[in-house]
């Protein structure tokens, strides 16, 4: 007989399952789809409840050649960085990516100012090149996104992409596109659990059901507010598991872009000899950031370096062993 009471938590809520990608059968052209969510307990705590679906890594690709990426990243991909379709193909065929996140960085008015039509062409080319589901991310410039993303949404109609990101003061245009073209949507909130919930409410009140929304509660890299971002994400998950239906949505993390923005990932060995080899430092930084967010309950991790992606996928498969 045990002296201590059973300390297991009993959760009442379950995270909604969201499927990204549509095969021919569902009106799309994807050869594979990804379903995330479904958790009935904190991640990997199988003794308390199920984590039925493994978190998914989406590899980040751009519509233009990045000019500020650290050398190890550039080296990892090589010349395909010039062509989004080739880049996508390399991620899937060589690195085994299950999903891609296409960032339309080149549409930003200050960084290329590509037209909506050009962006839509890029989307089409990527969809044609690979069969995995796609996240389509704007350039984080509200007005431009409102012109570009509806065109991309149309171009990808029926493919059930994940479109993002909407904010509480800019969501109507994109939600309308999502509804029309059968996509799912990503709601961005600035590390604030209440605003995260508000976006879910605003989007769902436009008629998009809660099983077509993914939350992006903002990511902070290791050493750059990761504790705060982790705790907000965890609080959101606790609220969801405690029965808050509006918070019961899968969560996405932008690991790669945040981790590779830090000086620790980018600085050369000459600048900081004590920091070690720059070829591996950024990769470790990305792995460290990603593995932290896995524990907070992230369902989709958007990552950059193939080596970091491989390491995290290994971690995930080990954590998923019952």
């Amino acid at each position: 007989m045990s002296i201590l009471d059973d300390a297991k938590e009993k959760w009442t809520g379950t995270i909604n399952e969201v499927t990204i990608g549509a095969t021919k059968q569902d009106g799309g052209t994807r050869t594979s789809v990804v379903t995330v969510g479904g958790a009935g307990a904190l991640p990997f705590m199988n003794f308390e409840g199920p984590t039925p679906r493994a978190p998914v890594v989406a590899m980040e690709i751009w519509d233009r050649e990045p000019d500020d990426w650290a050398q190890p990243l550039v080296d990892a991909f090589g010349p395909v960085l010039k062509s989004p379709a080739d880049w996508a193909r390399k991620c899937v065929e060589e690195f085994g990516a299950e999903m891609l996140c296409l960032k339309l960085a080149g549409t930003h008015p200050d960084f290329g100012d590509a037209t909506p039509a050009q962006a839509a062409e890029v989307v089409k080319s990527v969809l044609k090149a690979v069969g995995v589901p796609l996240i389509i991310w704007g350039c984080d410039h509200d007005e431009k996104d409102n012109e570009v993303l509806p065109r991309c949404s149309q171009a990808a109609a029926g493919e059930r992409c994940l479109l993002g990101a909407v904010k509480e003061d800019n969501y109507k245009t994109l939600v309308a596109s999502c509804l029309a073209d059968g996509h799912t949507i990503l709601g961005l909130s600035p590390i604030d659990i209440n605003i995260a919930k508000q976006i879910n409410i605003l989007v769902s009140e436009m008629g998009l059901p809660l099983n077509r929304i993914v939350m992006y509660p903002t990511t902070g890299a290791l050493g750059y507010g990761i504790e705060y971002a982790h705790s907000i994400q965890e609080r959101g998950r606790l609220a969801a598991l405690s029965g808050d239906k509006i918070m019961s949505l899968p969560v996405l993390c932008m690991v790669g872009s945040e981790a590779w923005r830090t000086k620790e990932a980018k600085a050369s060995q000459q600048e900081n000899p004590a920091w070690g080899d720059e070829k591996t430092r950024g990769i470790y930084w990305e792995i460290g950031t990603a593995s932290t967010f896995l524990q907070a309950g992230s369902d989709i991790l958007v990552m950059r370096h193939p080596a970091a992606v491989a390491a995290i996928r290994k971690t995930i498969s080990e954590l998923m062993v019952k």
Partner: protein
Amino acid sequence: MKTHSITFLPDNITIQAAAGKSVLDAAVAAGLAVNSVCGGDGVCGKCRVIVKSGKVTAKPNMFLDRREIQRGMALACQTFIDGDVTIDVPFESRVGGVPQLATEDAIRYGSISDWVGEGALFPHNPLFQKIYLDLPKPTISDCICDQERLYREIRRSRDIPIMQTGLAVLQRLPDILRQCDWKVTALLGCRGGTVEVVDVEAGDTSASNLGVALDLGTTTVVAHLVDLTTSKTLATKAKYNSQITFGDDVISRIMYGATPERRTQLRDVVVNDINDLIAGLVVDAKVKLNDVCMVACAGNTTMIHLLCALNPANIRKDPYIPAVCCPPVIRAAEVGIKINSRGLLATLPSVASYVGGDVVADVLVSGMMRSPDLSLLIDLGTNGELVLGNSDWLVCCSASAGPSFEGGGITCGMRATNGAIEHIQLGRNGDIVQCNVVGGSKPLGLCGSGLIDAVGELLKAGCIDRRGRFDPAACGGRLREGDSGGQEFLLFPSALTALGRDLVLTEADINNLIHSKGSIYMAMECLLDHVGMSFDDLQHVYIAGGFGNYLKIDQGIRIGLLPDLDPAKFKYIGNGSVQGAKMALLSQEALKNVQDQIAGAMTYLELSTNHKYMNEYSSCLFLPHTNIEKFPSLMPAPQKQTDAAVAR
């Protein structure tokens, strides 16, 4: 020093001002009340004037666009005189009009006879009394001094162990007593624990014993003339606090009052207002100013400091310590209030820097400290004050709500005076179904209650989403691009308004209101949480404050300002401040109750360091709230559909 003449239009007042003086300072010197929210720091953009002619130097600012600058528009506080100039002070930049008095109809909760008098809560025992005395003449066997003779006679009818008398009275006493054949009226005023023989008047003047109950608000000053013998209110008056020129809220006034000279200036300005009101009351009631011997004043802590020209600086500095919470009774003339020259001024005690005598007065009037029922009192204003408790305990806090309830920070906002839309009803596409304007004229702007109505109605009509953003599809043709970017909702086109200016509501306006209402709601939750209770435990919710009277409960609930409770639980207490001051004036016991049972018993909760407040504030920045289950009566149908969709 070089001076220039400066002429203000349309008043056509010309004064001489030193070169380099700001137009705002000159306007103050000319006796014009110009709007200035920030007190001359150049950050509010409200003191707009038009330079008609002459040379000025203007500091750049971000409030005026090029078109306005070309038209001669300038900010009075950022424009300095360089020569003889003519300045037009437009209507919208003036502190004008008469504030709406809480009418008897609006005071839907009790009257003075319920509180003071026979069979009421407190006995009738005024702070100031006049008693007629027929003194026995001195003889060789009854040879006590004049003062002792007076005291002995007073004590025959009153149980007053300790009395005091000023030298000025003693100097006149022997002559008065003998000139009027020992028939005199003694004027007795309560000063803390003692009674002062304030004066001695010849003959019987006891029939006319008057006092003034004063609500000294940051925005408005309200005065009631009261017959202390009959408890009747003889006349009432209100006006805007002229200190508004030195800042809209207490913080900017505290900042303005940084030097003794400026504090004297602030005091003189408000004392002028008080004197104007009292002079008007006396004329209206056809009584003598000399018969007004007592003023009881309820105001927030800062206003009381400024009335007494006390340094308020520490009120806004951590750890927020006022100079005094319970100022002594002083002679009214010491601060310049013109009543009987020996008359007294009493103030209601404060609890803390941001919970003042006005709130204490509200509690007194609500009676919540006498009932076992759990009650919540809300005083809505720039600073929202909340009190929770019952006959055993009281907890209070203050929430900085911002000026939107007073029409501040709102594009077409205004105070609740003539021309203000106080209620509005909208239909489909935001079309106006009904609109009430104070004074019945064409609308000029939106006051707090009108703003709450407008936002509540826009939400109901689906013209805005729950974050307060417009939905173009639901706004008919009323939505347009504003001058400063962003969308605005046209309520009234210029042809239908009093100033010929379009009356609009912007997303920024709605956002300001959302922040104001959010801070009040969050403060209520924190207060309840602090004592381990919830809204469901509340039996009564009292709404105080001039603005509170005009608030519609259903609209307050719809936008999430008020908790979603049975409307029958809400009660308006009208201007609790002036009513509480009146109760104190009429009953020493009431004042003592205020001091001991209310101000003395209230626990102050500081919200600026409250974790719950910090963590959950953003959940209130939604209409009505992020967690809709807190507002069951407002659960939207689409949400149920969404739930159903998920279930499918």
